[in-house]
């Protein structure tokens, strides 16, 4: 059978980040994938060496826009780990609040994109409309919809005013009914289950081999979550559950993200109602020479920062590892053997924060048949239509 190469990348109308996937297909089945990254490499690790610790906190916020708070969270913990600094209680709670608010908005964003790929444009519009409510909450708390700028080594930069808390709690309560509606629409829909169950399976053994993190690993039965394994901030003060499923397919990854949103709402409400009084900053003056490591469970998995300091106010070495770096290679296992129309949803299932596609160009190795970029998404949406007709829904 003639082999065709399907390059996907690097600029897609609906994808934010550029990346390049080269799929080799035989007929309709994918037989190999090669991932080219580097379209977003901006040399942040080298930039950090020329900036002070405070300035680096702002630089790392812009590593990724969606999980933008997870990087300062991990970085500040790494800097505090160098000298063993203890952060005040109130600061820990505020950090948790910001972290969980970001998780809800990130999962809603993913839900919208997944809905679009599967042909459920209404889910896309509803999820992003709901996301605006969460962004309003973050704006009340921190002053900005996106790059919150709330973190600093030693604590947080801004306090939460007591008169804001009832307003925020009311807003959070108002989103729960819509979340319920989205959950029912997505998890109980038979066509969606037919589209995502059994697709793109990552076995537990493979998840361990690739050192996958986050929902990608938890969907395959690997019960690891930094917030539970090595608790930090206020995560050990709240009773919440880690969501783990066993099958490792796309449906499981969807279920985990939807259910994690409810846990985040729980943690948010607990922290907002029980915010302890006190200082918000440990007033770190000098970072002693040494090394420190900080980790945080971002919406996509574990973020890892390593900092080495020599006693001055600049890091000697700052290493950043985003969670998607460990999850991207899992494509070798999940997408090989699947059909082309499932390709987009499998690629989106790990929630790549280095996202993807540009134009999908299907090129025949003999001739040069160039399809338009949107075609792979359209193939996916058409498959949903076919399934819907077959199931008589």
């Amino acid at each position, binding site marked *: 059978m003639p082999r065709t190469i399907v390059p996907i990348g690097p600029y897609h109308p609906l994808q934010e980040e550029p990346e390049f996937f080269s799929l080799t297909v035989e007929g309709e089945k994918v037989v190999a994938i090669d991932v080219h990254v*580097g379209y977003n490499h901006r*040399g942040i690790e080298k930039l950090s060496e020329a900036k002070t610790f405070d300035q680096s906190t702002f630089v790392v916020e812009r590593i990724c826009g969606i999980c933008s708070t997870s990087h300062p969270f991990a970085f500040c913990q790494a800097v505090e780990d160098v000298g063993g600094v203890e952060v005040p209680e109130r600061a820990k709670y505020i950090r948790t609040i910001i972290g969980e608010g970001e998780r809800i908005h990130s999962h809603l964003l993913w839900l919208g994109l997944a809905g679009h790929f599967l042909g459920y444009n209404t889910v896309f519009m509803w999820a992003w409309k709901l996301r605006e409510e969460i962004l309003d909450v973050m704006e009340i708390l921190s002053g900005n919809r996106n790059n919150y700028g709330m973190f600093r080594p030693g604590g947080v930069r801004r306090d939460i005013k007591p008169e804001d808390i009832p307003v925020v709690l009311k807003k959070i309560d108002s989103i729960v009914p819509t979340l319920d509606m989205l959950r029912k629409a997505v998890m109980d829909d038979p066509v969606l289950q037919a589209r995502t169950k059994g697709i793109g399976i990552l076995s537990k053994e493979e998840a361990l081999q690739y*050192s996958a993190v986050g929902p990608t690993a938890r969907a395959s039965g690997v019960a690891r979550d930094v917030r539970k394994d090595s608790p930090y901030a206020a995560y050990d003060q709240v009773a919440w559950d880690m969501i783990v499923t066993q099958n490792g397919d796309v449906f499981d990854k969807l279920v985990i993200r939807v259910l994690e949103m409810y846990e985040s709402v729980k943690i948010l409400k607990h922290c907002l109602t029980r915010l302890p009084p006190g200082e918000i900053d440990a007033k770190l003056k000098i970072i002693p020479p040494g090394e420190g490591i900080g*980790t945080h469970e971002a919406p996509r998995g574990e973020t890892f920062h390593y900092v*080495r300091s020599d006693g001055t106010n600049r890091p000697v070495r700052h290493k950043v590892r985003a969670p998607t*770096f*460990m999850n991207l290679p899992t494509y070798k296992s999940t997408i090989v053997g699947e059909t082309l129309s499932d390709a987009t949803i499998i690629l989106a299932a790990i929630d790549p924060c280095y996202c993807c596609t540009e134009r999908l160009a299907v090129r025949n190795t003999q001739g040069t048949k160039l399809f338009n970029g949107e075609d792979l998404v359209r193939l996916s949406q058409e498959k949903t239509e076919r399934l819907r007709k077959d199931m008589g829904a």
Partner: protein
Amino acid sequence: MTREDVLKDFKGKFAGDILEFTDKSPQRVYVEIKPGSIKKAALFLFKDLGARFNIATGLDARRHLEILYHFTLEDINLLLSLRVKLPKPFKTSSPAATGGGPMDSPPTTGGNDGFVPEIDSLAPLFEAANWVEREIHELLGINFRGHPDMRKLLLSDDWPEGVYPLRRDYKEWDPKAIRDRGV
């Protein structure tokens, strides 16, 4: 097994390879081992202790290149980092001695006179090390023996050979780069 048992077991098995053992805090342990023993130590941690390979950090300390391999043992809440030091050759002449300076000499290859140390690759042991080592290779210039696929990962194809951005002696090699805002 408790944290103490695990560390005692590790110290016992690799007594001849450990150069320095730093127990920094309950959650952080840093162990310096000989570069030749990285493969068996990593295999022990991954297979026998069930640790997760987190990431490897490469860095350029002035007299040597260093790689830290970070492993997470979730059950005992411990992050164990294996450190290997690859010493640089002693430089016999300095630019000042030869009369040149950063303005006079042409852009040098950022590689300490082309020094590229080698170490065994961990990619045959677990897939997670594959991309990690590709990144360290292109940014820091360390060769990993036995790596199945040593291509560039992040840098573009027109990036010059032998120029390693994360090295301390990296210099701007692109004459067309604009570094001021023009105001």
